């Protein structure tokens, strides 16, 4: 198979686009398309300061690489979650995030959850009894809280995450199976800023996970290949595998699923958009971040509970 642009041997074939490209043209195509999506969805402007949430994985490091190549002012944020599981997972992912930052002379904020709040994510999960024995719910809660805190405290205009189309399609698929209309309507490439909440954007939301893996490999980005030990058997991975089965049988199925959703949502015909938004948010007395409860936010309640619990 040959590259559509130069007749050289292709390195990747994207069936859903009927497009094959060689390494050289693929490494140009991905940033060009990212720039197109940033503009199309009104994510941010060249003058805005971006905080990129980096995990040491292929998507977030590739996103950081692309934004810097496109000339944006993008700093990184790494959250140390304290996950070891016998493979030094957090330590290794932090090393790779720091290596990328150092090699490219980029600024990386590092927040160690255990140092900051006294407990690692797995410990917080045990203490708070959230997530039915898995720390993923606590991890997500802490990530959202801390990413917003750092974006707010350091004056960033926008928080960018490396979610790709497979991530988005898996979330949409899961929410659709349950017809969680509120969550479905909230899903978007851009979550606008609100009082105390930074704008969140997903510039990679139109790329397949396979394409981002190919980008990281071709660009020579060293990323953490091991899966988070707690992700094994997770629902989101199960949904991704199911969608990939579908994609193999019908090229473009994932893309159509996600883009059709965005179109339907934009048209206003998906659901009646009432009771959606942040009209019911209050300010948490401890951290000041918005919360849907009139009292302390979920994160601060969890930390408070952890502080009152003897070390295990």
């Amino acid at each position, binding site marked *: *198979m040959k590259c559509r642009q130069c007749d050289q041997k*292709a*390195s*990747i*074939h994207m069936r859903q686009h009927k497009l*094959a490209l060689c*390494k050289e043209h693929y490494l140009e195509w991905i940033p060009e398309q990212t720039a197109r999506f940033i503009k199309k969805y009104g994510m941010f402007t060249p003058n805005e300061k971006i905080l990129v949430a980096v995990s040491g*994985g*292929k*998507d977030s490091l590739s996103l950081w690489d692309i934004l810097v190549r496109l000339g944006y002012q993008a700093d990184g944020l790494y959250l140390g979650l304290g996950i070891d599981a016998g493979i030094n997972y957090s330590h290794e992912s932090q090393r790779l995030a720091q290596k990328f930052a150092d090699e490219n002379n980029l600024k990386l904020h590092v927040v160690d959850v255990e140092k900051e709040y006294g407990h690692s994510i797995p410990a917080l999960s045990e203490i708070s009894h959230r997530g039915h024995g898995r720390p*993923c719910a606590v*991890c997500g809660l802490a990530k959202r809280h801390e990413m917003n805190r750092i974006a707010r405290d350091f004056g960033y205009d926008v928080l960018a995450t490396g979610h790709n189309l*497979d*991530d988005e399609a*898996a979330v949409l698929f899961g929410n659709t199976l349950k017809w969680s209309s509120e969550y479905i309507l909230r899903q978007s490439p851009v979550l606008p800023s609100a009082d105390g909440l930074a704008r969140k954007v997903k510039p990679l939301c139109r790329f*397949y*996970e*396979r394409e*981002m*893996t*190919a980008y990281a*490999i*071709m660009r020579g980005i060293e990323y953490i*290949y091991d*899966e*988070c030990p*707690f*992700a094994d058997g*997770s629902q*989101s*991975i199960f949904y*991704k*595998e199911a969608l*990939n*089965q579908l*994609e*193999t049988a019908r090229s473009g199925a994932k893309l159509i699923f996600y883009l059709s959703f965005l179109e339907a949502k934009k048209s206003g015909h998906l659901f009646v958009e009432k009771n959606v938004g942040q009209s019911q948010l209050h300010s948490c007395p401890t951290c000041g971040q918005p919360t849907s409860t009139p009292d302390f936010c979920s994160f601060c309640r969890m930390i408070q509970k952890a502080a009152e619990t003897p070390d295990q």
Partner: protein
Amino acid sequence: MIAKLILRDKVYEVRAGMTLLDALKKSSIVPESVIAIRDGELITDDEVLRAGDEIKLVAVISGG
């Protein structure tokens, strides 16, 4: 006349002369879930596997 597909710690032996796509399907590997690398270069799934090939497969799914 064997080619090998290597995914994490598993090795799949397939007949040389078949395409990568057919080899993946025969090995019950979902093509969309991997990137294939031969001699350090990414290859597309229409590539014909040669005897002695060792194709490294990189799993693409992450998340939790």
